[in-house]
C-alpha cells in the first residue's frame, strides 16, 4: 500500500467513526457536520472527474448541485401538497422517496451537464472557465425569478424524504446513507480513472495532439466526463437539499462553485480523497474560525492562498508526498 492509500483508509475510517462517537456522546450536531462533509465531499468527487481527470476547470458546477437540489425540492413539494407535477399528457406525481429523487436528480443534472458541456467544450482553457461560470449565473438568475418554486425564497420541505427501511430523520441514519453514497462514488471514480476511458481521457488531457493521432476524440471523451461529473454533483445537491430540508437559488450561485473547487485544492487536486479531506478541513475551519471572528473569510483566503502558492498537492500532498498528478 502506498502512503496515500493508507491515508485514504484512515480518512474513510475517521469520517465513519467520528459521527458514531458523536452519536454515542449525544452530540447530534456533530453528526450533521459529518454528514455535511460527506455530501460536500461527494459534490467534490463529482467535480474531480471533470477537473482532476479531464483537466476541465469548471467554475459552474453549482448549476448541477442546484439542479439536483431543485429535483428534490420540486418532487417533494408536490408530494407535500398532493398536487401532481403534471396531469397531461400523462400523470406525474411528486414523491418523497429518496431513491426515486436521486435517479431524477442524476438524470436532470446529467442532461444539463450534457447541454452546457456540449457548448462549453467547443472552447478550452480560460474560455471554458468563463463560459461555465456564465451558464451557472444564467441558471441562478432563472431560479430567482422562477416564482412557481419559491424564487429567491426557495422551497422548504418540512419532513426529510424517506428511504425504505430507514428512519432518515435520525441524524446517524441519514449520515450512513450519505456516507455509503460517497464511498460508492469514490469507488466509481477510482474505477473510472483506471478504465480504458479514464486512460484515454488522461492522454487527451496531457498530450492532446498525440491522443488525436491515435484516434482519440477529446471532445467526446470530455463531454462524457463532464456529464458524469455533473450527474454526481447533482446527486450531492439532492442530498444536501435533504440535509437542510430546504433548497434555494443560493445553491446555484457562483460562490458555491468556488467553494466546491476550494475543497479540491485544500485536499489535493486529482487525489481520490482530495475533495473529502478538503470538505472536512473547510467545515472544521468554518466552525473554529467562525467562532472567534466575524471576519473569518480573511483567514480562509490567506490559508487558501498559501496552499495554492506553496503546497500544491494540498493536504494529501503534504501527507503522502508528491505523487502522480492524476487519480
Amino acid at each position: 500500500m502506498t502512503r496515500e492509500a493508507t491515508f485514504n483508509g484512515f480518512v474513510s475510517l475517521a469520517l465513519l467513526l467520528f459521527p458514531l462517537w458523536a452519536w454515542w456522546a449525544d452530540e447530534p450536531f456533530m453528526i450533521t457536520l459529518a454528514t455535511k462533509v460527506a455530501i460536500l465531499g461527494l459534490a467534490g468527487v463529482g467535480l474531480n472527474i471533470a477537473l482532476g481527470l479531464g483537466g476541465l476547470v469548471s467554475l459552474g458546477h453549482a448549476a448541477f448541485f442546484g439542479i439536483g437540489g431543485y429535483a428534490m425540492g420540486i418532487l417533494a413539494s408536490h408530494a407535500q401538497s398532493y398536487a401532481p407535477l403534471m396531469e397531461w399528457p400523462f400523470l406525474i406525481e411528486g414523491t418523497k422517496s429518496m431513491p426515486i429523487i436521486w435517479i431524477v436528480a442524476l438524470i436532470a443534472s446529467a442532461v444539463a451537464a450534457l447541454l452546457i458541456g456540449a457548448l462549453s467544450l467547443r472552447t478550452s482553457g480560460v474560455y471554458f472557465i468563463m463560459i461555465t461560470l456564465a451558464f451557472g449565473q444564467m441558471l441562478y438568475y432563472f431560479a430567482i425569478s422562477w416564482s412557481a418554486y419559491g424564487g429567491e425564497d426557495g422551497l422548504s420541505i418540512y419532513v426529510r424524504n424517506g428511504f425504505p427501511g430507514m428512519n432518515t430523520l435520525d441524524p446517524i441514519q441519514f449520515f450512513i446513507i450519505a456516507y455509503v453514497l460517497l464511498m460508492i462514488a469514490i469507488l466509481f471514480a477510482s474505477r473510472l480513472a483506471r478504465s480504458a476511458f479514464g486512460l484515454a481521457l488522461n492522454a487527451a488531457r496531457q498530450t492532446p495532439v498525440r491522443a488525436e493521432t491515435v484516434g482519440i476524440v477529446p471532445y467526446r471523451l470530455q463531454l462524457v466526463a463532464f456529464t458524469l461529473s455533473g450527474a454526481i454533483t447533482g446527486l450531492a445537491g439532492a442530498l444536501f437539499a435533504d440535509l437542510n430540508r430546504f433548497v434555494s437559488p443560493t445553491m446555484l450561485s457562483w460562490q458555491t462553485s468556488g467553494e466546491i473547487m476550494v475543497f479540491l485544492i485544500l485536499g489535493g487536486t486529482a487525489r481520490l480523497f482530495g475533495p473529502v479531506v478538503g470538505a472536512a478541513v473547510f467545515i472544521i475551519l468554518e466552525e473554529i474560525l467562525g467562532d472567534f471572528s466575524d471576519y473569518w473569510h480573511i483567514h480562509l483566503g490567506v490559508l487558501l492562498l498559501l496552499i495554492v502558492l506553496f503546497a500544491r498537492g494540498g493536504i494529501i500532498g503534504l501527507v503522502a508526498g508528491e505523487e502522480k498528478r492524476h487519480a
Partner: protein
Amino acid sequence: MKIKMLMAAASTAILAATAAQAEKVKVGMITTLSGGGASLGIAIRDGFMLAVKQSGNDNIEVIIEDDQRKPEIAVQLADKMIQSEKVDVLTGIVWSNLAMAVVPATTAQGKFYLSPNAGPSALAGKGCHPNYFNVAWQNDNLHEAAGAYASSAGLKNSFILAPNYPAGQDALAGYKRTYGGEIAGELFTKLGQTDYASELAQIRASGADSVFFFLPGGMGISFLKQYADSGIDLPLVGPAFSFDQDILQAVGDAALGVHNTSQWNKDLDNAANAGFVEAFVAEYGRLPSLYASQGYDTANLLLSAMAKADVADQDAFRDALRAADFASVRGDFTFGSNQHPVQDIYVRQVIKEGDVYTNKLVGAALENHADAYVGDCKM
C-alpha cells in the same frame, strides 16, 4: 427619564426573579453579521442586546451566530442551536428566504421562533404555527400602508416597480390592495440590479403622477441617486426599508422629502421609545434604525413572557407571549390570531437634522392594521 427607565428595568428583574427563577431561557440568535446586508443583522442584534442589558435579567442567555445571509447556513445553525445548545427560543433572521428555511424547521422541533424582521405571507397564512410569532410586520404591511397613503394624498396614476422575486411580487400586490388609483406602469427589475436608467426612461414616458418602489438595500440607494439625477419630478412613495437610518447617509440629498411608510420612527411619541432612542445612542453612538427597534421590541416581548411563565411550560409561555404585555417602542401593540402584529403604520418624511439624514413623522397611514392572510391561518 433615566430614573424611570432604571426603575422599569429593576421591576422587570424582580418580577423575573420571582416568577420564573427556575430555568434559564436560552435564546439562539441567527442573523446576518458578515457580507452584504450585515448592517441589518447588526442593527437587530444591537437592539436586542440593548433590551437584554437594560433588563438586568440574569436568566437570559443569548447565543449569537452569523448566517452569512445563506439559507443553508441558517438551517444548519438552527439545527446546531436546537440539537447541541438546546436553546428554547430562536430569533434574529433578517431575510424572508432564510425565515422560510428556518422557521418550519424550528417549530417542527418544538421550539419558539420570534421574528424580528421577516414576515413572509406563507407563514402568516396557511403556514402559521402556534410557536411562531412575528414582532415586526407581515411583509405586505408597509406596502399596503404606502398604497393607502398614496390614495389619501390624492395620487391617481402610480408607476410601480420592485425586484422580480417573491417579496417584490408581494410588494406590488400589497400596494395595489389598498391603492385606489390607476397603475401607469408596472415593472419587475432584476434582483441585485444597480442601474435603473432603463426603468427611469420608462417612468418618464409613462405619464404617471407618482412612483412607488420597493428596492431594499443597495438597490434602493442606486435607484434614489439615479432618480434624483434623472430630472423626473414625481412624488416618490416607498416602504421604510430604503429610507432606513443606516442607509440614508449613503443616499444623501437624493432621499430628502420622500414619503415612506413605517410602523416606527425615532420621534414617535411614547416613553418607551424616547428611552430606547436615548439609550441606543448612548450605547452605540449612532441613531437606531427601524431594524434596531424591532430587535429591541422582540427582546422586550420575550422578557415580558419570561416574567410571567416558565419556558418549560410551553402552553403557559405561549399564552404569555400572545398577551404581548410589554411597552413597545411603537406604542400600542397586539397580536392578531395568526400571531402577527396588529398595529398602526405611519407615514414619514426624510429630512436633514444638522448633518444627519433622518425621518420625521407625518401622520398615520393605516390604523390597527392586520395583515391580509390572517383568514387563511387555521389555528
